[in-house]
């Protein structure tokens, strides 16, 4: 099948049974790849009510038809599972080089099922596929283990692995790769830890069949040419995602002290140019990337080397914790990466605990003696370790802010910043209604990458609640995640502004199937509805209450900064949901209607 590795690999960790089957043609036609494959398999193969950490849950790792080919940023890999953090759908996208090796090994998806009786790692070397003992690696950090595995097998072998956070079943553990790339959100690393799978080592040497080689080269060259000629290529490459740090601070979107404000009085110390000058050594890109956004940094103060921090980590482990030292943020980033926990959820959990401490809900007997005030760098480092190792206060914070705040009570639920149990990424949304709706309705919880609508708020009026805003959010939700379906990176479109229509002839040349963006958005909409069904199937009583944002954004206006005194009214929150459900063709309780499911050809998925 053109554009595909050609097989689905199944690994039963319990029995050691490993086998491949051809990738179903209909699956490729209907769901294309990546996130689409993951959503399909999750719904079909994980039984209703499965324990996310039990043997019935599975982890689906999928490439897409662009993966491993000479298309800008074609190194994206999707990890899908039932989330141990939220109990719903989890899908995390990881850059790097892993997915290219999957394709070169002839694999489109790796399906991990069952639970091993002892720590193991999975070696995939073309047709040699076996589970090996990982006892020597269990308990070690990701940086050291990846280095050991690279030295053992060779630089061309790619590694995806978990750290102690995943081994200890922290529900927001991530999967690491290439010493600094992560499948970060929703606890995909936790599921790997539950299966006692420390790492996957992969290498392949096969070619990928392409429908029209000449047209593929022409279309690929056109994409690279557009990237190379983009106006701001040098600036994006120089600063990566940290381009937006100063802008977020200016417009009140930079999370500050547990999202109590959107501007940080010491934010200047965290801006992209400051970071570049103080700690960045070089740029680091993923497979086939012409605009490497990764920044490899060194902190002299802490003696650490790390890929990052990128914007999300600066927001959540910097301003959100009242920390203005970029070297401290870089070191916190390294700790989280090495221990294998998501820096976004971790920064949120520590921010919530700091607010509890400053409000007197926690005292030193709750914090293991730590003076857990905002801005305490050493306490932050300690808490990252305690969360990953589930020690002291880390046991509570490792549950995520939704569950932790329910246990603690005393009003702390009001400043637990999450949607559906997933902690919010680094955009404060006190007065940005499109972005707030994007977080409320995101398919994994409060994550930004499906629909990044905050500039649209600024363009049309940030407090406006109008159907056009809702339509924009929905369009982005249908369109942007398609990059995760195709196995490519959206940042060339996002950052460099290249024409997305340039991907159409490339995809056709590779797969032999002509699909316009209208066609692709229909697939995106279908997947969106399917994942919504999964939430409803797995959570009895699932309704619009699940889509509500943190009360902070409709009850607690910032006392300083660009959004001082600004807030979204609760009635507007509900109006946004009403409009959203109507435009989606869902019931007023947020469930896809039978008519909509029929229209989406999803009736076979009804329970």
């Amino acid at each position, binding site marked *: 099948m053109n554009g595909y590795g050609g097989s689905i690999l199944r690994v039963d960790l319990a029995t050691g049974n490993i086998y491949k089957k051809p990738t179903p043609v209909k699956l490729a036609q209907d769901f294309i790849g990546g996130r689409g494959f993951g959503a399909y398999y999750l719904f079909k193969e994980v039984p209703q009510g499965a324990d996310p950490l039990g043997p019935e849950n599975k982890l689906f790792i999928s490439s897409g038809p662009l993966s491993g080919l000479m298309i800008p940023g074609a190194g994206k890999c999707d990890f899908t599972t039932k989330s141990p953090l939220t109990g719903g759908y989890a899908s995390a996208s990881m850059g790097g080089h892993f997915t290219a090796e999957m394709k070169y090994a002839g694999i489109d998806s790796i399906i991990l099922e069952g639970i091993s009786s002892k720590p193991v790692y999975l070696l995939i070397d073309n047709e040699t596929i076996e589970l090996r003992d990982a006892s020597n690696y269990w308990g070690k950090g990701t940086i050291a283990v990846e280095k050991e595995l690279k030295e053992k097998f060779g630089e061309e072998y790619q590694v995806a692995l978990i750290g102690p956070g995943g081994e200890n079943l922290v529900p927001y553990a991530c999967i690491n790769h290439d010493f600094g790339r992560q499948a970060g959100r929703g606890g995909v690393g936790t599921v790997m830890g539950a299966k006692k799978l420390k790492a996957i080592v992969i290498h392949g040497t096969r070619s990928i069949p392409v429908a029209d080689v000449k047209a593929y080269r022409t279309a690929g060259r056109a994409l690279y040419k557009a990237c190379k000629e983009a106006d701001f290529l*040098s600036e994006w490459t120089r600063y990566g995602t940290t381009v937006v740090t100063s*802008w977020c601070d*200016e*417009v009140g979107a930079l999370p500050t002290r547990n999202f109590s404000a959107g501007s940080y009085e010491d934010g200047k110390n965290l801006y992209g140019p400051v970071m570049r000058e103080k700690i960045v050594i070089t740029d680091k890109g993923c497979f086939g990337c012409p605009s490497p956004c990764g920044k490899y940094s060194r902190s002299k103060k802490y003696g650490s080397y790390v890929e990052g921090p990128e914007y999300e980590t600066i927001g959540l482990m910097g301003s959100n914790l009242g920390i203005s030292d970029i070297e401290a943020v870089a070191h916190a980033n390294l700790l989280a990466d090495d221990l294998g926990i998501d820096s976004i959820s971790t920064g949120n959990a520590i921010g919530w605990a700091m607010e509890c401490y400053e409000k007197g809900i926690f005292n030193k007997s709750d914090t293991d003696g730590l003076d857990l005030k905002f801005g305490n760098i050493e306490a932050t480092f300690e808490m990252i370790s305690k969360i990953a190792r589930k020690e002291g206060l880390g046991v509570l914070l490792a549950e995520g802010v939704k569950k932790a705040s329910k246990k603690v009570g005393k009003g702390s639920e009001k400043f637990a910043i999450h949607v559906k149990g997933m902690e919010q990424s680094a955009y404060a949304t006190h007065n940005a209604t499109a972005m707030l709706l994007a977080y409320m309705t995101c398919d994994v919880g409060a994550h930004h990458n499906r629909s990044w609508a905050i500039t649209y708020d600024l*363009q049309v009026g940030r407090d406006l609640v109008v159907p056009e805003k809702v339509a924009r959010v929905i369009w*982005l939700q249908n369109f942007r995640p398609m990059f995760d379906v195709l196995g490519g990176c959206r940042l060339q479109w*996002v950052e460099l502004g290249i024409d997305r229509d340039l991907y159409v002839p490339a995809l056709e040349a590779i797969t032999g199937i002509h699909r316009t963006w209208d066609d692709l958005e229909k697939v995106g909409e279908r997947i969106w509805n399917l994942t919504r069904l999964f939430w409803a199937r797995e959570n009895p009583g699932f309704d619009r209450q699940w889509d509500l944002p943190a009360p902070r954004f409709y009850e607690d206006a910032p006392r300083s900064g660009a959004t001082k005194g600004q807030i979204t009214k609760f009635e507007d929150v509900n109006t946004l949901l009403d409009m959203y459900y109507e435009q989606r063709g869902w019931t007023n309780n947020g469930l896809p209607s039978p008519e909509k499911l029929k229209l989406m050809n999803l009736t076979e998925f009804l329970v």
Partner: protein
Amino acid sequence: MTAIIRPTSALRVYIDGKDEVIVESGKTVRETLVTLKIKPELIALVVVAGEIKPKDYIIQEGDIVKVLAVIGGG
């Protein structure tokens, strides 16, 4: 006494689809953006001769001012 504003592609809709527009020098970038009906808060980065400048930078004669908006997002 003129200079050039060169916006990122997503902002060209504000200048009739052109790649760049000639403006008067002597005003700040912020004032000039307002004149062009581009909201200054949309702009994430101002670059002149490879250097990042604040929005209050006064545009000098002959400057080529690149302005970047993050429309697509992170």
